[in-house]
């Protein structure tokens, strides 16, 4: 892959994706509720959020698979609703569920997609062989996909998205369900794509994945972008790690929480059944004060640990609610969004 973008498309140096106020509702469920996204060409952009946050719906609208209820989106300057057929010539989509044909072999899949993209018979065969080689699938090329592992399927799926070498590639949770080794391989492939000039928009549930890959990240929750920025900007707002305290006597839990919030000056969450208080730890030095304060109050600790931020903590910090509980009011989220946006 050696294409040198820049002069072939008029818009290739500008924005790969510009979305304004995208909305999509399924019945009463406002899956995407006013999403704005700007992705600069030649970068990796991560969309981070839990299941059901609206990541997939957003990607489907950007990839012309779903018509937005409201808002606009442009891909390299072309409107996804008005010029869908042009947009489709500029994008590759790898879905959350492998979008390849189960009953056919890897080669047959790639040959058919190549043929559909206008390659000749021999050209399609050559392209298929080339991509299979590149993705380490040559040995399995003739086997039907039924016997493929999850990782092999994803790789084939990605290979299929690259046939036309589109300048923009959408990856919907490219590593969900993959083992760590396969995940690392996938990351390497994604990095290579960008080195050759492609733009990648990926969704993920894992903060470390966004951290590893993305130049910029948008955190999405309940169909809205609640925070956006570079990895460092977001990390600064989240706090690098979180502190977990388990108290010996569950009666003390609320008191502990109050002390934690007072001393560390952060929001915390409580898991009552586990007797656990979790709080972001922006400044490790303050923990000393906290421990002293807890001792002065006579609260006895059973366990203390420090954890790298997980998506849960990102959410806790940015939205004020955990991933599971989706009850708190909309106004609160909006208000916090303003706070959190860097």
């Amino acid at each position: 892959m050696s294409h040198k973008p820049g002069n072939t498309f008029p818009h290739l140096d500008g924005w790969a994706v510009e979305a304004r106020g995208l909305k999509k509702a399924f019945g009463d469920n406002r899956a995407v509720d006013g999403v704005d996204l700007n992705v600069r060409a030649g970068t990796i952009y991560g969309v981070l959020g839990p299941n059901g946050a609206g990541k997939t719906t957003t990607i489907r609208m950007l990839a012309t698979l779903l018509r937005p209820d409201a808002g606009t989106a442009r891909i390299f300057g072309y409107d996804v609703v008005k010029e869908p057929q042009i947009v489709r010539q500029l994008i590759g989509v790898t879905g959350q569920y492998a979008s390849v044909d189960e009953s056919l072999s890897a080669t047959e899949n790639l040959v058919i997609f190549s043929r559909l993209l206008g390659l000749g018979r021999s050209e399609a065969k050559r392209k298929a062989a080339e991509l299979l080689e590149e993705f380490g699938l040559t040995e399995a090329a003739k086997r039907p996909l039924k016997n493929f592992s999850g990782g092999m399927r994803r790789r084939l799926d990605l290979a299929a998205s690259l046939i036309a070498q589109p300048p923009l590639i959408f990856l919907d949770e490219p590593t969900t369900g993959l083992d760590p080794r396969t995940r690392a391989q996938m990351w390497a492939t994604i990095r290579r794509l960008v080195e050759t000039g492609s733009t990648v928009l990926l969704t993920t549930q894992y903060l470390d994945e966004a951290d590893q890959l993305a130049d910029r990240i948008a955190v999405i929750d309940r169909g809205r972008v609640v925070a956006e920025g570079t990895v460092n900007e977001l990390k600064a707002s989240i706090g690098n790690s979180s502190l977990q305290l388990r108290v010996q006597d569950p009666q003390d839990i609320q008191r502990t929480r109050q002390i934690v919030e007072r001393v560390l000056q952060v929001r915390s969450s409580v898991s009552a059944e586990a007797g656990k208080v979790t709080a972001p730890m922006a400044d490790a030095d303050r923990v000393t004060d906290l421990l002293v304060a807890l001792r002065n109050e006579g609260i006895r600790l059973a366990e203390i640990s420090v954890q790298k931020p997980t998506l849960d903590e990102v959410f806790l910090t940015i939205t004020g609610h955990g991933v599971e509980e989706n009850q708190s009011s909309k106004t609160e989220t909006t208000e916090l969004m303003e706070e959190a946006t860097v």
Partner: protein
Amino acid sequence: MKTTALDRNAARPLKNYTSFGQSVRNSLSMAYRGLLKIRRTPEQLFDVTLQPILFTLMFTYIFGGAISGNVHNYLPVIIPGILVQTVITTSIVTGVQLREDMDKGVFDRFKSLPIARIAPLAGALLADTIRYAIATVLTFAMGYIMGYQPDGGLGSVAVAGLLVIVCSWAISWIFAFFGVIARTASSVQGISMIVLFPLTFLSNAFVPVKTMPDWLQWFVNINPISHLVTAVRDLANSGTIGRDLTLSLVGAAVAVAVFAPLTVRAYMRRA
């Protein structure tokens, strides 16, 4: 290392429409996919191989004596009837498989490719003509084994077979429409059977129309299936081309003209 898409795109300006030529090429590629799928899963062909054999045997021996005096005299009546009934019933599968196919991830990819929107549908329907061809050949072969000697000659029989295939393809657009709008594959099967069962039996496919009550004769005579059956009988048994052939082809054209756009529209809307 590779010819790049960007270079190719630069040479070929981006356009927001698909030409007719490209639509045809895309549909043929999709048909090729359909054929590959049939080759990979030959058990899909059970219905088109077993049904002609089973139905021809059953209907001929059950109704033969009662309707035409003996089995041999009944063959020129029943073989075209069974042919039409079997092949058209086969076209239901098109809708069912389309529904199953559309629920799979691969259809998302088709939708995200810069290909003609109609291609995934047209290709699937085109590939299914191979199924109709198999059913047609087997029905005629069964008839031949049982002693059927079509007086129209081999050429006319081939034309008759082709006519049935073309009409079934046209009708399969109706089931494709059900396939696209229905929620599950089994409901497609259900709806289609309810539509097709009366249509094939309330026709002249199995029994002479004269034996039916007047009100029923009225329906049987306007039933397009009856016209198709008559056209096939004319061709196979006497080698003649009559008004029924024209009517069948017009009916087929109308079915495609109405249901192809409806199906494509519904397919596009259903994301």
